[in-house]
């Protein structure tokens, strides 16, 4: 029954995706605001959870002229350039003082803590209710960072007063040589390396880039084709309700020793909402997931075989969360906005690979991820006629003779696809999920269990990227949900594919 509810929810999201295709949505990128001067407001709002609930939160709103203007969880992602001086004027619409601080940045505004009646009120000067306060900092380093309130953090960070900062390096899109050097190539086309179709990190209008300044023109350690934000947080609904309905610190104080998270978020949403469309506001046109007005950011990495993806990981919660990527290892190249290098000019020579990264509270990680199917031992493409980009050449057109004849079993397995080493079970013998295509092959589809599937319009390979503390895959007692999203390997377009549709999902 729970599964059914989940499927219904997903169906709604799919419906939204289909409806919005005509709007021209860009999925698969980091949404945020750019510039050097912003106006923010701190106010309260409500967020929706996939189990049908809603929770009070405090968040930041981008009230800059032309901005989204509504409060959101998490706060607006700042995408700025290394060396920029950024000024934020904060207006406080809450009933207690708030502030903003920027760990890892060079703060230019006052760093004098705020005291009230002799006691610490805020780590930085704060903004009284109804008042405004201006903060400014210089982004001296490239990398992945965050901002957060410096006031009454045990309350205010649990309530959601934080947001991500992405600082683009000086050399972002400036090293022309990167455009000509292939990387992540595991295969070739007929012995010739496949021309790069999407590796446009150097294209001024492209989505690719580099996360940290390369030490030289051959340093590829943080070059990427696509980037995704993975900002995790959690909430205890008991606490959020206490804040909403009681907040009586004298007669009915909240027992913080009993605080226990039961909602887990990626970019402010619980699964399966993580996989819905983002809510975007461009040129005054609001589009996307209108059902989630205060949770604009989704998290659904979509990319092609051979592409290198940068995952910007931030843990804004109070608990540890182990992030497990199905499909392949990540390579962790930076921590807390610092490239993992032994000395300047070596590239990320101290980087490490992991299938699970423990995200400690307040830490950020940058990790790269590439998938090509290298070494699977069978050809992932059913269409054996042509080579596909980044196809692993050793497995091309490999065929198998099954060890066992299906007739002997008396059951009803599918006929053996010659390209697969084993015989698949019949569809009535399996229970398939929403992201399957029914086919073991990339870019192919076959019949699915009745009523299943439909969330894989490109017949891609999907991999769950999720917290391996599996209790966190629930939404307040309801499985599945929480800290999970599905990353999709979308096959490179073949001749005759509708590229317009593809481009709307994947810029």
């Amino acid at each position, binding site marked *: 029954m729970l599964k059914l509810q989940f499927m219904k929810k997903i169906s709604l999201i799919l419906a939204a995706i289909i409806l919005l295709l005509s709007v021209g949505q860009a999925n698969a990128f980091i949404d945020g605001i750019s510039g050097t001067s912003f106006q923010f407001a701190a106010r309260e709002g409500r967020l929706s959870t996939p189990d049908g609930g809603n929770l009070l939160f405090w968040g930041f709103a981008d009230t800059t002229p032309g901005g989204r203007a509504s409060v959101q969880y998490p706060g607006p992602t700042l995408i700025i350039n290394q060396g920029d001086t950024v000024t934020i004027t904060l207006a406080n619409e809450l009933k207690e003082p708030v502030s903003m601080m920027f760990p890892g940045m060079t703060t230019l505004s006052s760093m004098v803590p705020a005291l009230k009646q002799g006691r610490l009120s805020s780590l930085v000067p704060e903004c009284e209710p109804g008042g405004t306060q201006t903060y400014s900092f210089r982004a001296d380093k490239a990398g992945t960072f965050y901002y957060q309130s410096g006031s009454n953090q045990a309350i205010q960070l649990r309530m959601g007063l934080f947001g991500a900062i992405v600082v683009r390096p000086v050399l972002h899109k400036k090293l022309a040589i990167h455009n000509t050097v292939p990387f992540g190539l595991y295969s070739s086309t007929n012995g010739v390396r496949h021309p790069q179709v999407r590796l446009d990190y150097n294209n001024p209008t492209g989505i690719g880039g580099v996360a940290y300044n390369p030490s030289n023109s051959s340093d590829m350690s943080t070059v990427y084709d696509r980037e995704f934000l993975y900002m995790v947080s959690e909430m205890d609904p008991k606490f959020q309700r206490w804040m909403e309905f009681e907040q009586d610190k004298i007669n009915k104080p909240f027992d913080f020793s009993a605080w226990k998270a039961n909602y887990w978020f990626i970019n402010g949403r619980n699964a399966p909402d993580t996989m819905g469309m983002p809510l975007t506001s461009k040129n005054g046109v609001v589009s996307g997931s209108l059902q989630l007005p205060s949770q604009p950011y989704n998290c659904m990495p979509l990319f092609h075989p051979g592409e290198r993806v940068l995952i910007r990981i931030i843990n804004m919660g109070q608990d540890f969360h182990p992030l497990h990527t199905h499909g392949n290892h990540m390579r962790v190249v930076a921590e807390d906005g610092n490239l993992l290098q032994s000395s300047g000019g070596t590239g990320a020579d101290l980087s490490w690979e992991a299938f699970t990264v423990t995200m400690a509270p307040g830490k950020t990680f940058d990790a790269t991820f590439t998938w090509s199917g290298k070494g699977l031992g069978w050809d992932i493409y059913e269409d054996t006629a042509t080579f596909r980009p980044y196809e692993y050449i050793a497995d091309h057109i490999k065929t198998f003779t099954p060890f066992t004849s299906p007739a002997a079993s008396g059951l009803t397995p599918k006929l053996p696809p010659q390209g697969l080493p084993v015989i698949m079970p019949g569809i009535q013998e399996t229970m398939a999920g929403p992201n399957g295509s029914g086919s073991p092959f990339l870019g192919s589809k076959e019949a699915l269990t009745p009523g299943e599937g439909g969330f894989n319009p490109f017949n891609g390979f999907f*991999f769950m990227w999720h917290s391996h503390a599996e209790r966190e895959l629930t939404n307040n007692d309801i499985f599945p949900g929480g800290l999970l999203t599905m990353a999709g390997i979308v096959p490179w377009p073949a001749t005759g594919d509708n590229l317009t549709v593809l481009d709307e999902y994947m810029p």
Partner: protein
Amino acid sequence: MTTNKLLTYWLALALIAVALPAAAFLQFPYDIPGIVDWNNDGTATGTVPDFIGLPGTPAAVSMHLAAGDGYSKMADGTGLYIFGFNKGSAFPASTFMKNTEFRAEMPAPTISYYEGQEFYLTLTNVGMKLRPDLFDPHSVHFHGFPQAAPVFDGEPMASFGIRMGFDLTYYYNLVEPGTYLYHCHVEATEHMEMGMLGNLFIMPRQDLYTRKTLVPVSGFTQFAYNDCDNLPPYNPGKTDFETTLVTLSGSMCGSTGYHVQKEIQFSDFDAIFHQKSLAADVLPFADMESSHYMLNGRGYPDTVGASVLNDAASIGKVNYYSQPIDSKVTANQGQRILLRLSNLSIQNFTTLEFNGPAFKVIGKCAKLLRGPDGKDLSYSANSVFMGPGETYDLILDTSGWAPGTYYFYSRNLNQLNNDQMERGGAMTEITII
């Protein structure tokens, strides 16, 4: 209702309700090395070629797992209902169900083969004998194995699980050595809490190279990873190495060599969750709190004891050893020990501490701790902090250690008890002779 009464009650229901097909469809039956039975009649119809010309090491290997339910016995005597895997490779297809149902093991049978072998893993869902209301599929997720494809990944949103009474064969080309783990990924929070967890590790081809060449590296013939720089690959047909004339060398060459290896998996159970599962009650995900902390499915002192014999004889299951894997390590002074650690708790981080001299952390997440340019990133430590879904490889060099019993245990003090029973939990012994 007491647990025992519940057991009887459900068993009565189960006997009426569950009628499963009797045969299992094995695509590569029996894991007797090298033998293939094409038509499941129990007679070999062919052989698998030797892997790189090593007799007794077939190029393709297989295992047959049953997924179902069972019963476990905690170190404090508490009996807990579990879901789990057990090995059915020895049973012919015709009696497979009868021999494997209600015999779940915690942890699941260890999967361990060599880099380069092809592995056929057949999974039969033998159903939930004591939960006739459940129709859950099962799967095997080869956790952490690089370059996966959804069809063999066992994650049911992107692929599928196998329904009760049916079989599914996974295929893995074991291309990367290291310490992984495996578990059922269907309704993962529930099935993993219920015990569908297992050890999985792939031994490196450097072991086979030293076996072929008869030339040990720094005196070792077994290694955690391929740690030499010039180790040749297999030839394309995997009939041999490309060359066996190379003298292995490199800055880390031999650093992961060992004499004794042991897999140790940390996990925990919430007894109330298991009792509610048996009672077909609403599952308490929100209120989960672990009560029993374990290494390889047992709390101390069972971790160093004999195979745990279950009480299930009363319901017709004799010789049911539900927790067959101990965590005891014994080595001679001067030997090197490789510990393959994993954490498969679904909610707890753990710091495992050693009360002897420092060990070396040489691997993490099935990768040798080595930078992309070859830098040695291994380090010495006395404890290792491990999150759910992580694995670590430790080398304990016992040279000069005083003979005696050393302890390897969770430093999280709440993990050192078996529910109310003190002096227990996630702890084991390493004996140096």
